[in-house]
């Protein structure tokens, strides 16, 4: 059955709301290393590169339309201008399959200006502030027409928070950490794409923290590099539309200068299930400050 362009575009628009921006950076505060998370940003800023980030999202059948899928191939480059502050650029190439048509093209470009405040080392607590801007109209026109790319841009002042639980008196709870990201997203044209609240959180258990600060494991070294975690990412339109979001349990392998991460992406509520099924995201991430400490990986200006 041919897919209704209107309902297809509506579904894709819902999907656009539900899908998170791809790729992010890592941060160190006291004894804690906050790893780069996949469906939300971490609380710090450093010279890093995520390439690639691959996200697969199945689109369930709806309103007589057949099922489809969307695959995003993304990147993010974080560049410090001064220590702990700088800009990040995100982009992703989208393949969308469904209703007898396969579409491919670039998503809108996103630019983030972000700065990390001094962290409270003894309590592994850090905060960053940022402004995220998505440039409307930079994505492929045919994807905009198909509803796969937002037709207008937006700007989101954002606060990022990270808290390691290393100050707890219970040894085996100390590797836990929580992070959060909260923003209000101002649309360039709210009558087309509504303003919305974005909120996200992660719960992590760092085996690197366990073996370095609590108890050496009598296991192969490989296990001491693993970080199991779960991320929760939600968006609520200001206009009163349905809240959508995802829950993403996954596992990271953190090496000295890179990280490999994979997560399942599960619809976080009924409204989200209407627009997407359970997919996955994988990411390869390079810590440029460790790989090129004297060139690409250092701030442009140091004091």
């Amino acid at each position, binding site marked *: 059955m041919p897919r209704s362009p209107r309902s297809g575009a509506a579904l894709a628009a819902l999907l656009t709301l539900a899908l998170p921006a791809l790729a992010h950076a890592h941060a160190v505060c006291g004894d804690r290393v906050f790893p780069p998370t996949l469906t939300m940003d971490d609380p710090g800023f450093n010279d890093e590169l995520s390439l690639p980030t691959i996200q697969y999202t199945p689109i369930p059948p709806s309103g007589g339309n057949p099922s489809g899928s969307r695959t995003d191939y993304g990147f993010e480059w974080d560049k410090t201008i001064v220590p702990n502050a700088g800009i990040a650029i995100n982009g992703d190439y989208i393949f969308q399959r469904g209703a007898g048509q396969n579409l491919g093209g670039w998503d809108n470009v996103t630019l983030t200006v972000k700065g990390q405040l001094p962290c409270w080392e003894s309590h592994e607590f850090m905060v960053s502030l940022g402004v995220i801007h998505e440039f409307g109209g930079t994505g492929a026109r045919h994807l905009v027409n198909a509803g796969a790319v937002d037709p207008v841009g937006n700007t989101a002042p954002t606060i990022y928070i990270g808290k390691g639980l290393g100050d707890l008196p219970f040894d085996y709870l100390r590797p836990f950490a929580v992070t959060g990201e909260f923003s209000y997203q101002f649309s360039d044209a709210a009558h087309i794409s509504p303003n919305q609240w974005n909120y996200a959180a992660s719960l992590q258990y760092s085996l690197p923290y366990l073996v370095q*600060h609590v108890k050496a494991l009598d296991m192969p070294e490989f296990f001491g590099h693993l970080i199991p975690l779960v991320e929760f990412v939600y968006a609520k339109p200001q206009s009163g539309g349905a809240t959508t979001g995802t829950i993403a349990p996954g596992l990271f392998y953190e090496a000295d200068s890179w990280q490999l991460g994979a997560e399942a992406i599960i619809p976080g509520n009924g409204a989200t299930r209407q627009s997407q099924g359970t997919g996955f995201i994988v990411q390869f991430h390079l810590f440029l400050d460790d790989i090129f400490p004297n060139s690409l990986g250092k701030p442009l200006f140091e004091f």
Partner: protein
Amino acid sequence: MRATFLLSLLWALLQGVPAAHAHAFLQRASPAVGSTVHQPPTELRLWFTEALEGAFSTVEVTDAAGTSVVAGPAHLDPGDGQVMIVPLKPLAPGRYRVKWRALSVDTHTTTGGFGFEVAP
């Protein structure tokens, strides 16, 4: 089969990612992190993932009362710049706390700490 090959290839490529100047994190220690030893150690050894600047890296070892039990200055192993050695005073049975601050050769600073116990 193909997936296994691709994963093997990816892992091999990852091993080639340069990391000559990464943050220095603790790889292992003797006495081990969180361990209980029956023979009081005469020194503490810390193995890091990167070479350190010895003059700017510090290690404190204290007993349960917070009193230092370090017998001399911490120093790098002359044969291995990734190993920090701290001579210790004779240790009585009890719990001890280690706090380290490491400056890697590319000037990244990292910190950490752990405990160990000397059994009666």
